[in-house]
């Protein structure tokens, strides 16, 4: 069975082609010469800067960096270098974002991520180089997410961080209400506690019985060392858990236990201001408030003071401007949500989910347009989401030691008229707009190779199928040749 449709096949080939051309780069050394280098929020901009990336990390950055003789050079005097955007929370790229059962912390997005999903290809166009994939918002406790880079054909190639945190939702799952959602959340942790207590009790009972048996039989009983680990946790603990080897704990409960012990981050979705209270309450009662990030809808700006008091960061999912309708008079007011969050000192990251545009830099630009400083706006799509994901030292800005995730913009990064021309992920060229067949299709009306226009046409009949069964390397060369021809105004009509 051929799982891939024609378009996904084309996509796979297209990505493969891009990758291969990237792999053609020198093993480990890449130098980017840009007209301007924007390092990150609040950091100085470097005119005619050079970024040297070795083995995936930035080895040097500045105006007068010596470029090694064996480095591949990307010379872009008209382009502006910018750190790759970081998406702190996304539920896309999977076959199905939501799971049916309530407590499903043992599941992982690893099993649902589809590397050839269009979303990853598109992320490159928007310059998003680090993505935290979590399960959808329609859940009680969903599975564990992971941080990926939108590059690679297998999950392994894409993985940046295997476990990024557990997803929870305070907003009622479809068919439920706030009361039953709260009940389900409490039940999940209550069940965990009861389960652990039962385990410990059974173990203790077993040990006691063994001791009595030994006494009865006249045996000396060797002392048993606790094979497990005492339970850590700031809100509640089950005494005696050290008696249980960790391997004996039901694997379905292990992630929740890790959450309570403060070992796993949590992403808690809140669709309404009242849900914020629920989320913070559940996180507090179960000891993982310090590792919680709230994923909020714009309406939750009303709960900003409560969020600030709890000291947790948020990911704002949705448009930055929220239209509020007065329930009594029907009058409408526009609220600039990041402005409200900033007023109350809530750390926030923007997200490209649920908006009319997937462009994080457009969202940041909107913030600047409504009075936010450029530093704050840029931080909300680079360094802050990086910190939220625990990758503050690896991504988010262009600094020595951090990953070589660089975007090359055609103009001012926050301008609406700028495009991402090239994307480099960890020193490998991941995207080149000039070779982007879909963009060409969109802008110039030319269909990508090996696809057919809807409805068919006479010209389609003439199409020479050249790619079926062709070696990918050959096909890559073919595409490059085609691109060159088209640029010169010639070329086959496909």
């Amino acid at each position, binding site marked *: 069975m051929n799982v891939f449709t024609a378009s996904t096949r084309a996509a796979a080939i297209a990505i493969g082609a891009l990758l291969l051309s990237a792999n053609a780069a020198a093993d480990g050394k890449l130098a980017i010469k840009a007209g301007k280098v924007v390092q990150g929020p609040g950091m100085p901009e470097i005119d005619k800067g050079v970024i040297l990336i070795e083995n995936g990390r930035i080895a040097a950055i500045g105006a007068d960096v010596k470029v090694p003789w064996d480095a591949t050079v990307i010379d872009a005097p008209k382009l502006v270098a910018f750190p790759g955007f970081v998406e702190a929370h996304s539920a896309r790229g999977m076959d199905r974002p939501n799971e049916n059962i309530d407590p499903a912390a043992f599941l992982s997005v690893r099993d649902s991520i589809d590397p050839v999903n269009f979303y990853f290809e598109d992320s490159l166009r928007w310059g998003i180089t680090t993505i935290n994939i979590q399960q959808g918002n329609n859940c009680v406790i969903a599975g564990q997410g992971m941080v990926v880079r939108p590059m690679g054909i297998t999950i392994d190639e894409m993985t940046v961080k295997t476990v990024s945190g557990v997803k929870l939702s305070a907003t*009622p799952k479809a*068919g*439920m*209400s*706030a*009361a*039953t*959602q*709260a*009940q389900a959340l409490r*039940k999940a942790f209550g069940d965990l506690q*009861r389960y652990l207590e039962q385990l410990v009790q059974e173990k203790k*009972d077993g040990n*006691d*019985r063994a001791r*009595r*048996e030994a*006494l*009865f*039989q*006249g*045996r*000396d009983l060797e002392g048993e060392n606790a094979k497990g680990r005492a339970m850590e946790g700031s809100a509640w603990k089950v005494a005696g858990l050290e008696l249980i080897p960790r391997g004996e704990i039901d694997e379905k409960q292990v992630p929740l236990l890790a959450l309570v012990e403060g070992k796993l981050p949590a992403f808690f979705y809140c669709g*309404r*201001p*009242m849900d914020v*209270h*629920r989320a913070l309450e559940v996180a507090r009662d179960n000891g993982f408030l310090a590792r919680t990030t709230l994923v909020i809808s714009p309406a939750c700006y*009303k*709960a900003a003071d409560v969020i600030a008091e709890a000291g947790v960061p948020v990911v704002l999912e949705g448009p930055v401007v929220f239209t509020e309708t007065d*329930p*009594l008079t029907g009058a409408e007011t526009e609220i600039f949500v990041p402005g409200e969050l900033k007023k109350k000192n809530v750390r926030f990251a923007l997200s490209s989910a649920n908006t009319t545009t997937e462009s994080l830099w457009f969202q940041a630009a909107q913030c600047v347009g409504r009075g936010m400083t450029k530093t704050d706006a840029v931080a909300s799509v680079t360094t802050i989401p990086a910190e939220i994901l625990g990758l503050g030292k690896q991504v988010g800005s262009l600094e020595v030691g951090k990953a070589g995730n660089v975007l090359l913009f055609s103009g001012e990064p926050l301008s609406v008229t700028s495009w991402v021309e090239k994307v480099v992920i960890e020193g490998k060229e991941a995207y080149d707009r000039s070779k982007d067949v879909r963009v060409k299709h969109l802008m110039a009306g030319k269909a990508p190779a090996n696809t057919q226009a809807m409805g068919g046409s006479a010209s389609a009949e003439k199409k020479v199928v050249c790619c079926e069964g062709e070696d990918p390397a050959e096909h890559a060369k073919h595409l490059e040749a085609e691109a060159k021809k088209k640029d010169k105004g010639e070329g086959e009509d496909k």
Partner: protein
Amino acid sequence: MLAIISLMTLGLHSGSTSMFHSASEDQATARSVLVRSEKLYVTPKRVIEGGALLIQDGVIVQIGRGLEAPEGARVIEGRVVCPGFIDAWSSFALEENAFEDDRVGRATRASDALDSYVDPRFEQQILGAGVTAYRVQPSAGARAGGLGAVVRLHPGKRADQSTLLADCCLAGGIGLARDGRAVDVFDRVGEIDRWIGALSDGQAYLEEQNEYRHELEEWQKKIAEKDKELDEAFKKAKKDREKAQTEAKDKGTEFKEKEYKEDKKPKAPRFDEDKAELARVASGELPLVLEVHRALEIRSLLEGTKRFTRLRLAIAGGTDALECAEELKARRIPVIVWPQPTVGGRPEEARVKGMGLAAALESAGVEVILGSGAAAGIGSRDLPLLAALAVGHGMQSEAALAAITTRPARMFDVSDKVGSLEVGRQADVVVFSGEPFAATTQVRFVISGGDLVVEGR
């Protein structure tokens, strides 16, 4: 008597002001409110002509006649002063999903269902009618409605901060139409059976727990004794074992350990939160409010619940309850009535079922509590009008007033906090320009939880 008490307290008070005249004292008196009236209802039965209330820092410190206002105190005057009204059947501030939730169970809590961001102007509208507290369930009109909460209205506080009692009752409905479809007679009987069964389950769960505890104690005692025995016998047992081991070695047989047997530890019954709540209901700790209308169902319900001797049952709605009035009276089962004008039917029966129901039940000796029927969120605002309708159709004024103050407070175990004016309580007071149920009467002031929340018109 009251005059003497008020004079004494007056003397004490003026004494204290002269002795400790400090800045903080000034502040304290600045937060004093004296409420004067021509008629003060401490409870519907206890009226003080010309009575007054002194409130300091939100707490009622004095009730009596001829009270003097301390320096700096705010003075409020009105014709009639009452305790704040309580709506025993409301759906205010329930979040929108609560009305359609199918998964509501018996342990679902109303306090989780309240929208803490409900627009305070709605709260203000309800307070403006004199209603200061209400009972709400996690799902309006559900079969198994979950645990209700009594909440005080206060625009400055969120619902979780002004909840008076988070689990005041368990509620449910029998024979109610679902999704616009009426339930047929077999389903209705089935619903009653399920409730009776649930109560039995709850009782059984409680007994199971008690039995387990008892058995566990016994077992633990036995085991402790056994432990002692074994300890004492260990030396000998060890010797015997070594002897047996050597014997076996000599004979060339395999040494087998002695088989050890002991009583198994009794297994704990599985935790079931629904059954735990039903146990509380069956034991009388938590009242049960069931919305039921038809005579057949009310009778079956009364019949089926006879054996739960400690059950505190109340009926909500009770359109046909008059037919069972004697038994309701005998078993002291109150009926929470929604005196709404009915639609359709013959004029005589319509009045008895709708607005005249409260009066009819009251005359038959049944305790009547009034509520706004959880019809619409803001419905609680119209509770005093509904009470007036009930009076208009025969209910005594005093009974109607009790039906929205002392009786619901008692039913839902919050009479130590609301429902009447008592010294030491946070003040929930309404000041009227006339008799509470008259058309021309206006609410002039409302104090809820000690704070002045509505100011005169």
